[in-house]
């Protein structure tokens, strides 16, 4: 792989890598970059989580005990931006970096230098964003959705936020291009698209979504920028603009974005459930088509985020029906996972536990999503804690649990060492109990009439808020165990074998453990591809 280490290292052997800081700064290796993405995501997860704990601490009791309402709004806004753009998205890109070349039989990502650039944009983007906590006027406080006119009232944080979002967007687009090019051009000879593992498929579709919608977000925030500084009036009513137009543009990005966060999770779960059921994935092709249908539908449902802005009746009906349709391919996926476990031989290692929790809890999030699609009922649910409960159910025990499941699942292959199964299981149970104590009562709060994004509430909401906050602290602190398990495995875990899970199929398991620095130096032979492919 002469192209992965060039300038001052002319001599080039297989496992050669630069040492120290240079290895990371100049990284072009998919594994190094994947690791950096995952570590970065983890740091952001804890920062965003700390902000969530500020929120839940303030909501522990009625009355304001800890923070000013303006700062509280900054916390909700920053929590969302950090978790979405800083934790979940980079974690998926990190997993894609690690796994896609290994799974398609490639030595590395197709565009290693671009890969380096797309990662290194992120620390700068988030440094800018976090700096806003210290500028006059405080961090952005208008919600991560940045609705004008409120977002235009921000202080000095405004241009920093917009610039940070642009950087994140560029990073995502470049990362997505890399995944697309790798999957389409670097598959081992003989590996057809429909031989790929589901994780590659869901990521391929996710990458197209990213390329389609990140420029839309960039456009929307640029229009905000010119409204603020250059006297345009795209979204300013007094100048002939329309604040609702922003919401349409934003959610045209925002809804596909939701699937960007969840589709790779479908991929990971579709890898893990067959492995621990010791049975091939049921309905592989319908899984691929269902993923593609969900991606397509994601472009025609955006206005269900804004049923209360006052749309024409026909518009509301259209968006209600298209939204309800999403339940069909999503249902197909859930049924296929169930059918995969049916007549299997199931064991319950930590990755499987997280995948099972995903199955149950994501389905609960799907149910509340179906309820939210019913427009008249949405007039009650909208902007209440019911919505908060809904999207946290699909994002936390959905995306985040799938990320953790993936990390536990592939960690032995990455590091050559096993994690401590016992601690992993404790982490699982604490997380699962914590997440339900945290988010389930929020359904009640929302239905009883508590609006979201408020720092203080009427005393009738006190009890369930307190329960929710207790769950938040339990969930939050349990995540320290996750870091401990990984640290412990890397430092002193038992040596892992090439195929630590007996039911695991896929090219990554045909590589030695730990996986070599350049995954597949020579394409895997047909027999190995056939062995890895399960259908």
């Amino acid at each position, binding site marked *: 792989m002469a192209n992965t280490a060039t300038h001052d290292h002319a001599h080039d052997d297989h496992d050669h890598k630069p040492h120290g800081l240079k290895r990371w700064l100049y990284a072009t290796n998919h594994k190094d970059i994947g690791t950096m993405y995952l570590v970065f995501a983890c740091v952001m997860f804890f920062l965003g989580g700390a902000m969530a704990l500020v929120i839940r601490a303030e909501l522990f*009791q*009625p*009355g*304001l*005990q800890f923070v*000013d*309402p303006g700062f509280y*709004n900054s916390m909700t806004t920053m929590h969302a931006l950090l978790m979405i753009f800083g934790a979940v998205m980079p974690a998926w890109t990190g997993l894609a970096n690690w796994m896609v070349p290994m799974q398609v039989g490639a030595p590395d990502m197709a565009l290693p230098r671009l890969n380096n650039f797309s990662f290194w944009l992120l620390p700068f983007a988030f440094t800018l964003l976090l700096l806003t906590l210290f500028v006059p006027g405080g961090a952005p406080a208008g*919600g991560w959705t940045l*609705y004008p*006119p409120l977002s235009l*009232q921000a202080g000095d944080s405004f241009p920093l936020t917009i610039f940070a979002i642009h950087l994140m967007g560029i990073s995502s687009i470049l990362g997505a291009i890399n995944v697309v090019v790798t999957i389409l051009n670097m598959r081992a000879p003989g590996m057809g698209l429909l031989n790929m593992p589901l994780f590659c498929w869901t990521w391929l579709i996710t990458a197209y979504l990213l390329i389609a919608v990140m420029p839309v977000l960039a456009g929307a925030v640029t229009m905000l920028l010119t409204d603020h500084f250059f006297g345009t009036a795209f979204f300013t*009513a*007094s100048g002939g603009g*329309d*604040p609702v137009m922003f919401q349409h543009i934003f959610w045209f990005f925002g809804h596909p974005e939701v699937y960007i966060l969840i589709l790779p999770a479908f991929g990971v779960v579709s890898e893990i459930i067959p492995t621990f059921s010791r*049975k*091939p994935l049921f*309905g592989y092709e319908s899984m691929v088509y269902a993923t593609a249908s969900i991606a397509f539908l994601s472009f025609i449902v955006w206005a269900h985020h804004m049923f*209360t*802005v006052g749309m024409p009746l026909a518009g509301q*009906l259209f968006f*209600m029906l298209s939204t*309800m349709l999403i*339940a*069909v391919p999503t*249902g*197909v996926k859930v*049924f296929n996972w*169930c*059918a995969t476990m*049916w*007549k*299997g*031989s*199931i*064991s319950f290692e930590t990755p499987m536990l997280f995948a*099972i929790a995903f*199955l149950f809890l994501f*389905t609960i999030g799907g*149910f509340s999503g179906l309820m939210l699609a*019913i427009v*008249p*009922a949405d*007039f*009650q649910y*909208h*902007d209440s804690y019911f919505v908060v409960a809904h999207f946290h159910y699909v994002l936390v025990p959905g995306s985040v649990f799938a990320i953790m499941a993936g990390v536990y699942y592939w960690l032995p292959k990455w590091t050559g060492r096993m994690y401590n199964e016992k601690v992993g299981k404790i982490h699982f149970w604490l997380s699962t109990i914590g997440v339900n104590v945290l988010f389930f009562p929020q359904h009640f709060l929302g*239905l*009883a009439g508590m*609006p979201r994004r*408020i720092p*203080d*509430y*009427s*005393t009738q*909401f006190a*009890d*369930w808020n*307190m329960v929710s906050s207790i769950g938040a602290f339990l969930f939050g602190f349990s995540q320290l165990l996750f870091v401990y398990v990984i640290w412990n495995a890397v430092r002193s875990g038992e040596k892992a074998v090439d195929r630590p899970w007996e039911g695991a199929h896929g090219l990554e398991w045909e590589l030695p453990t730990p996986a070599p620095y350049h995954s597949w130096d020579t394409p895997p032979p047909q027999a190995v591809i056939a062995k890895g492919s399960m259908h």
Partner: protein
Amino acid sequence: MKRHLSHALTTAFAILGGLAPLAAHAEWGNLNMPVGVTELSKEIHSLHMTIFWWCVAIGVFVFGWMIWSLVAFRKSQGAKPDTTMVHNTKAEIIWTVIPVFILVIMAIPAARTLIAIEDTRNTEISIKATGHQWKWQYEYLGEDVSFFSQLERASDEARQLNSGIDPTTVPDYLLNVDKPLVVPEDTKVRMLLTANDVIHAWWVPAFGMKKDAIPGNVNELWFKVEKGKTGIYRGQCAELCGRDHGFMPVVVKVVTKDEYKAWIAAQKSAANPAATESTAEPAADAAPTVAALPAVPKG
């Protein structure tokens, strides 16, 4: 064993209770959407319950299937995998088509209610509500009655950071205003919603509805409180509108038609001699925008 468990539970709740001086005001029963006091809110509630029970039914099936698999096909119990089971067109068609049917069954009543919600014909009273950071302004169209409605003082004092005031001692903490909107029962009231600065949303859960108040736009919403359901109904701004978004309640006092007539007449006579009433704000948290507001038109 059982006694042990119940003892442990009691202890756990006692600990929770110790954490919560508020447990005395227990509202553990607030689990569901209120039924409401308008025809529409009842329809919405029944839609909510219908879709909820559908979800429960699907949940029983799906979770039952999952749990069954997890229990019956445990490797530890010697389960052998059936690796030939990879695909079944018939099953896949069934679980695509049945959900479509369920969705159609749900969509029909939802569409019917939605059409009723959008039908703003034959309204008897029109009130324009303008959202300001952070108060509502109500104008009774054609009546020359207009006033602001904002968080009343006891709540406002208690909600300050470390105020030292226990919110449970404040009646209707955060859900009380200095001057509520007054509407008659059994009357189709149309709210025209707009905003002066940023987007707000007007929400009274008992009326079943919320809608955004957007600068430069006028949105409509109607409600007709059933006869005999007079009383005070409370809600809040439901769209993030800045620092004091959480402190912008909506309070509606529903009175009989006669009381309403008397109230409107009293408002008019009170407004005429002194035009200051509606702009005399409790200064505590007055937004800077208030000074710039156009004077409320007086007859």
